[in-house]
C-alpha cells in the first residue's frame, strides 16, 4: 500500500514539474516578444528631450530617432535619399515592422499604451486612438512649424480637420490636374492569350470568357502544370479584391469599398446587389468548366502571386499592387509573353466608366498620427513640413540630382540607368529610398503624379514617356496592337469625388451588424460559386441574401447613408469656409 502511495506521489510530482516547466517556457517566450519595442523608443526620447531645450527659432538639426510602424519588411533607413532627409532635419526613423494582422497589433498597442512615436493608422483606428487620448492634436504644431504643410494644402487645409476643428492625422494632398501615367486597369489578361486570339478588343466578361476558354482548351498545361483560366484568392483580408471590387469596377463605379452610392446619396451593401449575382454567375460558369483556380478558397494573395509568377494564370482581377512582383520575375525568367495586359473589363458594352476617380486629399489607410508619448512632437512636424517643401518633393520623388536625375533643357529628367534598373531590379526603389511608409496614394507626402511645383516642372517623374521607357518590348508590342502608348490610355478620364466611403470613420452603432454581414458573406461565397447547376446557384444565392438581411443590412445601409450625407454636407461647408 505504501509502495503504491510513494509511486503515486512520484508520478504526480513528476507531472507537476513537467507542467511547471512547460508553463515557465511559455511565459518566458511572451516576455521576450514584448521587450524590444520599449528599449527602442527610450534612447530616442532622451535624445529628444535634450534637443527640445534649445531655442525653437532656428531649425533644430540635432540627431533624433523616432519609431514608426510599417508592414513593409523591405523598408530601411540606410539609403541615399533617407540620409539626405536626416541631413536636412536631423531625424532618423526606426521602422517597427508588423508581421501579420496590423489591426490586432494596433489594438494591442492601444491596450498596453505602448506605441511608436509616429503611428500610421487607418481612419477607424485614428478615431479609436483619438478617443483613448493616445495621439495628440496637431493644429498648434502645424501653425508654428508647418508653413509648407499649410501652403501645399492651401484651400484644402480645412479638410484635415475633424468635427471639432482639430487635426489629428496628416496624409498627402493631391494637386494633380492630369491622370497619372502609370495608372492601369484592374483586370489582367496574359499577353500570350491575347496573341493567340489575335489581339481582340476585350471589353466585357463574356469576351474575356471566350479568349481564356479557347487558350485553355489549346494549352491545358503551362510548363508541366495545369493552366488556370481565372485566378482568385479568398483567404485573408484581400478576399474583397477578388469577390467585391471586380463588381464595382466592372460596373464602372467609384470604389467605395463594399458599398455602392447612388446619385442621390443612398448607400447600399454591394455583396447582395444584382451585379454581384451576375459576377458570381460568371465565376460559377468558369468553375463548372474547370477554369477557375481550384484552390481559390483556401489561397491567400501570396499563393496567387506565386502561381502568376509561374505563368499559369491566364486572367484575373488584380490591381497592380496585388500582383506584386510576379511580372518582374516572369520577365527575369525570360518569359515576357506570360506577363499581363492591365485593362478595364465591364459587365456589358454600355457601362459608362466613372471608376477612375480621385479625391482632393488621400485621407485613406495611411494617416500619420503622433503618439502622446512622444517627447518632442515638434521635430516630427518639422520633418513632415520639410517633406512638404518643394525641395523635398524633388528629393523624394525625383531623387538626388546627378545620381537619379539631371536637368536637361531646364527640365528634370530621370537618368536612363535608373529607368532600366527599375525594370529589372525589384528592390531598387527600396535601395535608393524612394519608398517610405505610405502617406496615402504616394510615398513621402508626394503631391500626386501629374502635379506641378512652383518652378513649373512636374513634381514627380511620372510622365507617359517615362512610363513607356519602363516597358519591355513585349509590352510595347501589345500596346501598339491596340494603338495605345501606356496602360493608362485604356482608362476613363479622371473624375474628382469629395471622398470615398472607406475613408470615413464607420458608424460605431452598427459595427457588430457589419461584422456579421461580412462573416455571412465570406462564408457563403464558396457555396455559391461551387454550385453544380443554376438551380443550386439560385438557392445558395437567395440563402445568402436572406442571411445578410437577417444580419441587419438595412440598418447598416441607413447608418452609412446618414454618414455619407453628413460628410458631403461638411465637405461642402469646409471647402466654402
Amino acid at each position, binding site marked *: 500500500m505504501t509502495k503504491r502511495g510513494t*509511486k503515486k506521489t512520484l508520478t504526480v510530482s513528476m507531472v507537476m514539474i513537467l507542467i511547471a516547466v512547460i508553463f515557465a517556457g511559455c511565459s518566458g517566450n511572451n516576455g521576450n516578444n514584448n521587450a524590444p519595442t520599449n528599449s527602442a523608443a527610450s534612447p530616442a526620447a532622451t535624445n529628444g528631450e535634450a534637443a527640445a531645450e534649445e531655442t525653437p527659432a532656428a531649425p533644430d538639426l540635432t540627431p533624433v530617432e523616432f519609431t514608426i510602424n510599417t508592414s513593409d519588411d523591405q523598408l530601411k533607413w540606410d539609403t541615399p535619399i533617407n540620409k539626405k532627409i536626416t541631413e536636412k532635419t536631423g531625424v532618423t526613423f526606426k521602422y517597427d515592422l508588423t508581421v501579420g494582422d496590423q489591426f490586432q497589433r494596433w489594438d494591442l498597442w492601444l491596450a498596453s499604451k505602448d506605441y511608436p512615436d509616429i503611428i500610421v493608422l487607418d481612419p477607424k483606428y485614428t478615431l479609436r486612438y483619438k478617443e483613448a487620448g493616445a495621439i495628440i492634436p496637431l493644429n498648434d504644431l502645424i501653425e508654428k512649424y508647418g508653413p509648407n504643410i499649410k501652403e501645399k494644402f492651401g484651400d484644402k487645409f480645412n479638410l484635415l480637420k475633424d468635427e471639432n476643428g482639430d487635426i489629428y492625422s496628416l496624409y498627402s494632398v493631391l494637386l494633380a490636374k492630369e491622370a497619372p501615367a502609370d495608372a492601369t486597369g484592374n483586370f489582367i489578361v496574359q499577353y500570350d492569350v491575347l496573341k493567340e486570339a489575335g489581339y481582340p478588343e476585350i471589353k466585357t466578361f463574356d469576351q474575356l470568357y471566350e479568349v481564356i476558354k479557347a487558350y485553355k482548351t489549346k494549352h491545358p498545361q503551362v510548363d508541366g502544370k495545369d493552366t488556370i483560366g481565372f485566378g482568385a484568392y479568398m483567404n485573408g483580408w484581400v478576399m474583397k479584391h477578388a469577390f467585391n471590387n471586380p463588381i464595382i469596377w466592372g460596373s464602372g463605379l467609384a470604389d467605395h469599398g463594399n458599398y455602392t452610392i447612388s446619385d442621390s446619396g443612398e448607400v447600399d451593401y454591394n455583396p447582395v446587389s444584382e451585379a454581384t449575382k451576375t459576377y458570381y454567375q460568371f465565376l460559377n460558369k468558369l468553375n463548372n468548366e474547370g477554369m477557375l483556380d481550384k484552390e481559390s*478558397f483556401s489561397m491567400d494573395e501570396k499563393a496567387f502571386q506565386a502561381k502568376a509568377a509561374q505563368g499559369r494564370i491566364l486572367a484575373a482581377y488584380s490591381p497592380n499592387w496585388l500582383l506584386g512582383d510576379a511580372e518582374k520575375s516572369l520577365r527575369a525568367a525570360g518569359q515576357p509573353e506570360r506577363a499581363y495586359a492591365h485593362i478595364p473589363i465591364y459587365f456589358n458594352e454600355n457601362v459608362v466608366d466613372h471608376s477612375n476617380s480621385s479625391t482632393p486629399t488621400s485621407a485613406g489607410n495611411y494617416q500619420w498620427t503622433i503618439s502622446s508619448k512622444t517627447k518632442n512632437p515638434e521635430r516630427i512636424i518639422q520633418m513632415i513640413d520639410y517633406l512638404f517643401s518643394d525641395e523635398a518633393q524633388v528629393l523624394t520623388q525625383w531623387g538626388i540630382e546627378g545620381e537619379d536625375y539631371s536637368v536637361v533643357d531646364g527640365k528634370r529628367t530621370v537618368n536612363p540607368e535608373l529607368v532600366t534598373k527599375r525594370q529589372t531590379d525589384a528592390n531598387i526603389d527600396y535601395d535608393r529610398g524612394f519608398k517610405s511608409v505610405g502617406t496615402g496614394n504616394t510615398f513621402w507626402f508626394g503631391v500626386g503624379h501629374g502635379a506641378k511645383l512652383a518652378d513649373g516642372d512636374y513634381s514627380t517623374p511620372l510622365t507617359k514617356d517615362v512610363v513607356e521607357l519602363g516597358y519591355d518590348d513585349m509590352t510595347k508590342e501589345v500596346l501598339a496592337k491596340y494603338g495605345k502608348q501606356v496602360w493608362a490610355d485604356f482608362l476613363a478620364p479622371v473624375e474628382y469625388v469629395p471622398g470615398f466611403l472607406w475613408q470615413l470613420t464607420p458608424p460605431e452603432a452598427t459595427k457588430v451588424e457589419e461584422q456579421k454581414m461580412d462573416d455571412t458573406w465570406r462564408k457563403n461565397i464558396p457555396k455559391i460559386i461551387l454550385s453544380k447547376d443554376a438551380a443550386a446557384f439560385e438557392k445558395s444565392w437567395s440563402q445568402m441574401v436572406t442571411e445578410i438581411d437577417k444580419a441587419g443590412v438595412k440598418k447598416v445601409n441607413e447608418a452609412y447613408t446618414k454618414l455619407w450625407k453628413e460628410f458631403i454636407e461638411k465637405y461642402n461647408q469646409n471647402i466654402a469656409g
Partner: protein
Amino acid sequence: MHNKDRFTSKTVTRKVQKKMSKATEQIKLASYLPQAKRRGFFGKLIKQQQLLIMSVPFVLIALVFSYGPLWGWIMAFQDYKIGKGVLGSSFVGFDNFVKIFQDEQFYFVMRNTLAMSFMGLIASFVGSIVLALLLNEVRKTFFKRAIQTITYIPHFVSWVVIANVVTFFLSPDGGLLNVIMMKLKLINEPIYFMIKGEWFWIIHTLASLWKELGWSTIIYLAVLMGLNPEHYEAAEMDGASRFRKMWHISIPGLMPTAILLLTMSIGWAINSGFESQFVLGNPAVIEYSDVIDLYALRYSTQLSDYSYGMAINMFKSVISVLMVLSVTYLAKKTQQSRLF
C-alpha cells in the same frame, strides 16, 4: 550455477535494503507525529518551515499572474471604453452576457470548440497510450528511440508550418494525396479537402494528433518503464502472452497517470486556443472551424468591444472549472488518482 547464486543474493540484499529504509521512515514519522499533535497548527508550521519558504515564490507567481488580473473581470459588467478606463466606464449589469446567449453564432462556435477539443482529447489519449504500449514492447533500443524521436519532432514545429504542410498535402492543385489517388484511379477529379466543412474537424484532429502524438507519449513511456518488472516476470511464469501482460499489467499501471492527465486536459477543453483553427481554416469552412477564441477575436478585439470579450472569457473560465470538478468527482468515484 555461480551466476544464479549471485543474482539471488543481490535480489535479497535489495529487498532487505528496501525493508530497512521503510522501517527507518516509519520510525521517523512516529517521532514527528506526536510532537506535531502536541504543538497543533503552529507547531506544524514551524516544523515545515523549509517547505513553506520554498513554496512562497510559486504562490506569489500564482497570485500575481493568475489571481491579480482577475480584477479585470469588472469590465464584463461595463460598457468599457479604452479611453475612459475601468474606473470611468459605465456599468451595464449582465447586458454583455445576455448578448452572448442571444447570438446564434455563439452556439456554433461553442459546438465547434467542444467538438474539436474532445475529438482531439480522445484521439491523443488513445493514440498516445497505444503508441506507448507498442513502443514499450519494442526490444531494439535504437529502433525504439528512432520512432520516439520521429514522432515527437512535429511538436516543436509551429502550427503555421504544419498548416502549410497539410494544405499542400491536401491541395486539389497538385497536392500529394490527390495526385496519388488520381494515379490509383480512386477518384476522377481532385477533391478539395480544405473547403469541406464537415471534414474540417477530422482534418484538424488528425493534424493535431500528428503534431502532438509523440510528445504526449513520452510521459506514458516513463510510467511504463517505472512499473515493477517483477509483475511481468510473474506473469511470464504463469504463461501470460504479450497481450495479456499489456492488458493486466501495463494498462492498469498507466491508468492513474492517464486519468490525472485527462482531468487536466479537460480543464483546457474550452480553452484550447485558436492557433490551429486560425491557420488551418478558411472562409469556406468557417461554420466548422470557428472556435470561441476566434469569435472573441472578431467580435471583441477587432471591434474594440473589450467588455464583450471579457464576458466570453468569464464564461469560459466558469465552464472550465465546472468541467475539472466534475471529472475529479468521477475519478474519485472510480477510485482513481485525482488532481485534488
